[in-house]
């Protein structure tokens, strides 16, 4: 997030797209509700009627995958009506002239035709967002126009043009000067407890800790020196979906999985399973025997987040310290202990000489000290500073108070760049054989692949079984009633689940959560079209067909 969670409650307008906030980030939705109660407008752009719609001023129910047209039309309207923040654009950005030209063809009428959203709604959304309109009450900011905040999540990024989508939202914020101030900005909501931290500390194919590019020789050499190795690999690695393909062609032989469940979370499960089965070595380090663990050669038992210490970084870049609450179960070790023991043995096997204690740490704190030394954005952090409310990066030195708001006064790159974006349709479109669009996501009571929450008694009581949300109209086509069994088939596979007739999805769209091992949504999703830059698969749109097993 460019801004902080607490600022949401003070926003005048909150623009939510591709995020089912109330179910995936409930506590952030509490902030949205607070803002609503204070009189803020909420605009929701989503194919599904998500719970927050009840509290929204405007709900733009798009056909899945057509949101890019709506965003572009919103910007078109803002420019046409003169709602753009000209002073901000002149002072803080570049590339506006070219960008503006590209937008001309994306009229609200065009977007309406493609997305099914009425023109008036697009124009109203443009006005409210750009000017930061309120429903009632007083803005807490003494400003010429209100403060608008964009919240988004995987609905935007898990797309074959995800990078374009994110850039579009950034363009929108810059166009209206809604960035670099409190209660504004472009705010991705990260799905898991430490997805932000895992990225920050370099668990990405192209960057080292602190987002230093692997392709940059200076960073590479500096880090090699810090780590006491001669060289570090300089080419960008394989992302997980690419790796699955590489397994099939034999170029990847071993996969070491720490606390992940690709059998459930990766697209096109049949292909994932086939790939995993073909490995020479699959190591799964986890707390439960996950679906992936069943295919492993070796399973290493780890402790859960309730049983260890360390730091995690939340979606607003806040690094916070966790504490062990329970003792370790059985002979399980913390993940860092396992890694370090494995690394020592690996070195021994390969005959590599290291300083004594190279892989040995006596605590998580010791690792953090090393980590902050090589991660500039964490440079000023240590455990004593992190106690209490933690610190938000960048925090480069010991005096730095942390950064609640990014891009204040100046963008990280200097001038904010308007990136012209061309609208693309999703890679897979419905056809006669697969007439419906499937979109995937989460439900409130379960988390990710369900390994933890489905083993929690109260949560499993509340939501014991999976289901697919189907509009009454589509259900009628195959003669389905609420609660009936239904078979869902895509070009990649087929699952059987329960039908839930729901007004939450429009006709032509179905929704399935991916928590259910009995009906794994990713059996259906496609892995052939990745975002060209972020390499994210298009979970949010694929074509499916419904069959009534009774028929």
């Amino acid at each position, binding site marked *: 997030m460019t801004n902080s969670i607490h600022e949401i409650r003070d926003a005048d307008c909150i623009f939510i797209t591709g995020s089912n906030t109330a179910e995936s980030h409930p506590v952030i939705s509490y902030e949205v509700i607070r803002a609503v109660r204070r009189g803020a407008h909420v605009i929701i752009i989503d194919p599904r*009627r998500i719970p927050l*719609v*009840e509290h*929204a*001023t*405007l*709900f733009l*129910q798009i056909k899945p995958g057509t949101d890019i047209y709506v965003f572009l039309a919103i910007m078109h309207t803002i420019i046409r009506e003169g709602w753009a923040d000209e002073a901000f654009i002149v002072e803080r950005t570049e590339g506006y002239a070219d960008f503006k030209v590209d937008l001309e063809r994306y009229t609200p009428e065009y977007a309406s035709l493609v997305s099914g959203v009425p023109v008036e709604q697009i124009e*109203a959304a443009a006005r*409210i967002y750009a000017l930061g309109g309120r429903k009632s009450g007083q803005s807490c900011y003494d400003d010429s126009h209100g403060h608008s905040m964009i919240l988004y999540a995987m609905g935007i990024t898990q797309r074959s043009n995800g990078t374009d989508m994110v850039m579009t939202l950034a363009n929108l914020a810059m166009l209206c000067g809604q960035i670099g101030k409190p209660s504004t900005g472009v705010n991705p909501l990260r799905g898991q407890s430490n997805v932000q931290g895992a990225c920050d500390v370099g668990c990405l194919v192209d960057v080292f800790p602190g987002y230093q590019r692997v392709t940059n020789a200076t960073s590479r050499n500096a880090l090699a020196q810090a780590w006491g190795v001669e060289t570090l690999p300089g080419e960008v690695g394989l992302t997980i979906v690419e790796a699955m393909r590489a397994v099939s062609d034999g170029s990847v032989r071993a996969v070491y999985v720490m606390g992940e469940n690709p059998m459930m979370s990766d697209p096109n499960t049949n292909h994932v399973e086939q790939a995993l089965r073909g490995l020479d070595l699959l190591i799964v380090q986890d707390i439960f025997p996950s679906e992936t663990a069943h295919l492993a050669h070796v399973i290493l038992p780890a402790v859960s987040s309730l049983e260890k210490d360390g730091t995690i970084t939340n979606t607003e870049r806040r690094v916070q310290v966790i504490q062990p609450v329970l003792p370790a179960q059985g002979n399980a070790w913390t993940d860092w202990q396992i890694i370090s023991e494995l690394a020592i043995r690996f070195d021994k096997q390969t005959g590599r000489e290291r300083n004594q204690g190279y892989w040995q740490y006596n605590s998580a704190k010791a690792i953090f000290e090393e980590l902050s030394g090589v991660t500039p954005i964490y440079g000023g952090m240590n455990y004593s500073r992190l106690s209490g409310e933690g610190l938000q990066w960048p925090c480069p030195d010991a005096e730095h108070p942390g950064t609640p708001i990014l891009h204040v006064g100046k963008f990280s790159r200097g001038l904010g760049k308007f990136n012209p974006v061309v609208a693309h349709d999703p890679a897979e479109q419905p056809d006669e054989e697969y007439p419906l669009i499937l979109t995937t996501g989460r439900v409130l009571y379960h988390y990710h692949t369900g390994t933890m929450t489905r083993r929690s008694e109260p949560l499993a009581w509340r939501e014991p079984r999976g289901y697919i949300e189907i509009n*009454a109209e589509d259900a009628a086509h195959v003669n389905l009633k609420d609660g009936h069994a239904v078979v869902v088939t895509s070009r990649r596979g087929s699952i059987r689940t329960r039908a839930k007739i729901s*007004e939450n999805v429009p006709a032509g769209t179905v929704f399935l959560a991916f928590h259910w091992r009995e009906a794994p949504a990713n059996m259906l999703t496609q892995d052939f079209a990745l975002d060209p830059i972020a390499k994210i698969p298009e979970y949010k749109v694929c074509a499916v067909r419904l069959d009534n097993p009774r028929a």
Partner: protein
Amino acid sequence: MIVPNKTATGNQHPSGDERFKKIDNQLRRLKYEKDALLEILNSAQELFGYLSEDLLIYIAKQLHVPLSRVYGVATFYHMFTFEPLGEHTCIICTGTACHVKGANRIIEAISDKFSISAGETTPDGLFSLTIARCLGSCGLAPVVVLDGQVRGKETPETVTRRAWEIVAFSKDKQAEGS
């Protein structure tokens, strides 16, 4: 202006009851404003005679007001009832003037005669006894409303007799019918 989308199927009550259409008309007249809840409940009470669960759910959905709030509001005000009233009703005013002039004795007499307490309906569904907070006819205290007809300066005897006659008449008619 800005109106949140209405669900495609949420616009009509499936029963097709004419009275729901009247509610719909009023909802439209009041522009589906959440403020209009009390007005709608008043009309619903008038049209249906009582507020059923189904009716409250329908109103909540149409107005986009949480059902909990609809229920909370409906239970707050005296005039809303949740069970159908009897065929005949007797409302006894218990305002100060009527109290001073013996309204309680009338209530007792009726309760005795029909074996029901205030707020109840006879098991055959023919007769309900209710109590009102001052009907504002204090000059004619004690005041009783029998089947919508306001009657002043009543005594326990006159009221019970009249009520008994009305109910007996209905019973006879029922007997004839069957």
